[in-house]
Structure formats: C-alpha cells, structure tokens
C-alpha cells in the first residue's frame, strides 16, 4: 500500500512538473539541493547555539534542577523530566487507542462503523492543535479540577489531550500496513477457517509489527515536539512532577513562554539549550522511524 501510494505521488509530481517546465529535472534537483542546504544550515545553527549556550552559561547551572532567575539559576532539568514524562505517557495512551481504532477499521466492526471512524479520524487531522487546547481549557480542565482536585492544569490533562491529538496519524500509519497485509493473506486465512478476529490478531498484526513500532516512534517525536498543548494545559510550574495532578513545564512550553527574554541572559541561553535538545531528540527519532519504515517495506 505504502509503496503503491509513493509510486502514485511520484507520478503525480512528475506529471505536474513536466506540465510546468518541459525539462525540469535539473531545476528540481537544484531546488532540492538548495532546500536541503537551507535546512542543514538551520539545524547547524540551532545545535551550535545550543553548545555555545552551554559554554557561555557555565555559571548558570543550565542543567540544574533549580530555576530562580533572581538568584541566577536557570536549570532546565525539571523541564527535561516533564517533556519525557508527558511524551511517554501520552504515547502509551495514544498508541493503544490507535491500535484499537486500526483494528476496528480492519474487520473487528461492521463496515459502517469502520467508515464512520475513518471519517472522524480524517476530520480530526484537519483540526488545528490550538483548538484542542482551547476546547480542553473550557471542557476538560474544569472536570479534572472538580473530580480530582488541584488546578486542573496538570500532567494528566495535557497527556490526555496530547494522546487524542496523536491518534489519527498513528492510526493511518498502522492502517496502511494492516490493510495491505490483510489483503495479501485473506484467502489463505479463510482457507484455514480463521475468523476475521483470529486472522487479524494471529497473522496480520504480528506481520505488521514493524509498522506498529514505527507509528509509535513517529508519535513519540510529535508528542515531544508539541508546544501548544502543554503550554495551554500542563500548568507550566517549574518543579519536578510527582503525581499526575502536578503542574509541569515541558521544554517546548518553556520556549514558547520565555521567548521575549533578553539576548545573552540566562533565560535566553536556557532557550537555546532547550531548542538544541529538542531538535537532536526529534532528529534521532525521525531517523530511526525512517530506517524502520524502509526495512518494513
């Protein structure tokens, strides 16, 4: 399926470009090269300024656990912890939901339910993140506050919404693989007298294992990188999180909050370091997921 799709896309781009300019392979290559060069420069810039911040900020304990701008402590350790916890928790919930959705769409439910779910998930991909955050501030936060106490702006709320937001992407990646494998093995499975559920759980899912994992890795990258949802929902207090009802500040939320700081100050250096950490993490994650995708194909 994936291979077919990429083939179609290839053809479409080729058709489009040849429609625009007759002999355009040189132009295309040049564009691709310059775009990668620009991207490379941006990445190099962020990583270098992160390292630079570390060197300049020796006296500011940037990797420390204390943030107290009056006393000159700009530690982002609590934010690293928050980012990791939020990403992993929302990924666990989101991945399980996605697997469920994928199974429902591939034979565990009548086709009208599957179609309906497909429609909803497609719609969900079109909703901007800020809408999830905004709706949750007015709908989910008061519920959490009344039911469980605290302010409602906490790890739990943020991870629930972040999980929900990641479901469509992960589901569609899983669905692509599962659909292809189902088609390939359907006749054999029927010949062996398997029900659809047995076919799905015993044959299709084990074969699609790599796609399931790469969906998780992609989801992890997105969960770590999202800034709006934690900024709006996680509370942003700077301290280590102990319970799901604690307020937390992730690296991404930190960047979006402290953006208007003075250049060269401790706040600014902490932003550069946070940016470099996030970029490195997301780059590693997406490299891993690409390699896995290629192998599974």
């Amino acid at each position, binding site marked *: 399926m994936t291979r077919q799709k990429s083939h179609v896309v290839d053809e479409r781009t080729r058709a489009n470009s040849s429609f625009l300019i007759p002999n355009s392979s040189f132009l295309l290559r040049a564009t691709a090269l310059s775009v990668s060069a620009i991207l490379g420069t941006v990445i190099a810039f962020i990583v270098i300024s992160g390292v630079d911040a570390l060197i300049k900020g020796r006296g500011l304990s940037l990797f420390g656990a204390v943030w107290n701008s009056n006393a000159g402590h700009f530690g982002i350790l609590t934010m690293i912890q928050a980012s990791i916890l939020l990403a992993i928790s929302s990924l666990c919930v989101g991945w399980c939901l996605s697997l469920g959705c994928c199974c429902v769409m591939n034979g565990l439910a009548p086709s009208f339910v599957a179609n309906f779910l497909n429609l909803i998930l497609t719609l969900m991909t079109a909703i901007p993140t800020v809408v999830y955050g905004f709706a949750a501030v007015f709908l989910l936060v008061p519920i959490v506050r009344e039911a469980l106490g605290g302010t409602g702006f906490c790890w739990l709320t943020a991870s629930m919404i972040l999980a929900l937001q990641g479901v469509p992407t992960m589901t569609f990646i899983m669905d692509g693989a599962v659909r292809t494998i189902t088609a390939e093995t359907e006749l054999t499975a029927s010949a062996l007298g398997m029900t659809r559920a047995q076919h799905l759980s015993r044959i299709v899912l084990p074969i699609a294992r790599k796609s399931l994992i790469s969906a998780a890795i992609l989801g992890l990258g997105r969960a770590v990188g999202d800034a709006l949802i934690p900024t709006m929902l996680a509370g942003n*207090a700077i301290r280590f999180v102990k319970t799901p009802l604690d307020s937390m500040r992730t690296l991404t939320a930190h960047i979006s909050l*402290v953006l208007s700081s003075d250049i060269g100050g401790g706040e600014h250096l902490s932003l550069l370091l946070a940016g470099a950490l996030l970029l490195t993490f997301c780059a590693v994650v997406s490299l891993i997921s690409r390699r896995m995708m290629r192998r599974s194909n």
Partner: protein
Amino acid sequence: MRKLLLVMLVLVMAAAAFADPLDAFKDLEGTLDIAGGTAHIPVMTQAAQDIMTFNPKIRITVAGGGSGVGVKQVGEGLAGIGNTGRPLKASEIEQYGLKTFPFAIDGVALAVHPDNPVKALTKDQVIKIYSGEITDWKDVGGNPGAINLYGREDGSGTRETFTDKLFGKGELSPAVNVVNSNGAMKTAIAQDKRAMGYVGIGHLDSSIAGVAIDGHVPSQENAASGEYFVVRNLFMNTKGEPTGLTAAFIDYIYSEPGAKIIEKSGYIPLPKNN
C-alpha cells in the same frame, strides 16, 4: 446618488487623513533605535509599525534589555530613546543630561474568582501566599481549600511590576502555575474558584474580582491618583531635548492613536508634561 455618496466618502477619508497625527512623519526619514524596558515593547512596537507602514523611509528598531540598559544606551548615544520602568536617578540625569517623558501607568491587580469571599489581604499575606508559606484559603479568611496560584512567565512586565512592588528579590514558590498573557490569566481565574493570580489593571472586569492590598483597592482611577501602590510609571528618556524623528515619535505616543495603543497594551496613558 451613489456617485455623490462615493465622493463624500472620499472627502471624509481625506479629511480624516489630514487630521492624522501620522502626518508629522510625512517628510521625515532615517533610523530611530529604541532600547530598554520590556514592558514598553508592545507599545513601542505597535507605534513603530504604524509609523513605518505610513512612511517606509523611516526605520525604527525596538529592543529590550531592561531599564538599566535603556539608560546606558540612550546616555551613550547608542539609542535615540531609552525606556525605563522607573524614574531616572539624579545621578543618571546629571551624568548623561537625560530628559524624561512619563507616558503610561502600569498597574497590576491581585485577582480572585468573583465568588471568592476574600476581597482584601495584607501585603504580608500576599507575600506569604506567593512564597508558598500560606497554602490554604482558610488561613486568610476564605473557604477551606488549597490556593491555586497563577503567575506570569519570566520577562513579563506585569510580573516584574507585581514582584518588584511586593517582594523585592524574594523567592517565588515553584508551585505557581504559569500562563503567558493577561487574557489567559483571566480565563484561568474566572474558571477556578480557588484561584489567585494577577493581571494588568486595564484587564479587570466582571469575570474576575480585584483584591485590595492593605486597603488599597485596585482600579484605573486609584492607579492614576496614586492611591493604589502596585503601579509604576513607564518612561521614555532622551539625551537632551529630542529633535526630528525622535521628537515626532514621542509626540505620536502622546497623541490619540498613541493613547489607544497604550490602552490596548493594558496600561493607562498619561498626558504630556505631567
């Protein structure tokens, strides 16, 4: 008929254009650098944008740095206008020959949910609450329940005024939830019956309730009269009497559209020479 209306519309627009304070910038060109206080930035940036859109030959740059940087840069001639969130010290005026222009009052109000019975606190209580010593509403005369603390991010002018006037260099509790705008603060407090936070006085309305500190009630009038004390003036400073583009910019801040920008940024505009 329609043509007549159109002509009239054009005339009205032309008249409006004639009365526009931006006209002062028509024949000017050059660069103006502004540096200093961060609370000033929204006002300065918006005014600069209006002016540069009106006359693209003018370039105005706005940088932060804090009040100290503002004084230093304008005094050493690195910036045309140096902004401060505090009055100039006598030594600074003497050393650099600075002239100062207060243009806005930045007041910050402590706020709670309208249903909260606590509508007055002492300064000492506020400090203890924000430093994490008092954590329950029953200790300050309210209904029992944890105090949900909200604050603003590092670098926020509202936070700076609030902490400067109340805490000095005291340490804030790490349990403070951080929101990134006066609007988000209002939303958080309006929804949370156990909330305590602070907003620019211009943002107080019926959705949240201001809290008097030591008997001083936060309101626009009290901030303007000096009765409410969690306020500071915002100043523009120039080296000697301003001329040319610098003078025009300062006049624009004091003009009617300037006052609108100041109000939109949550501050109270001040008239010139006051």
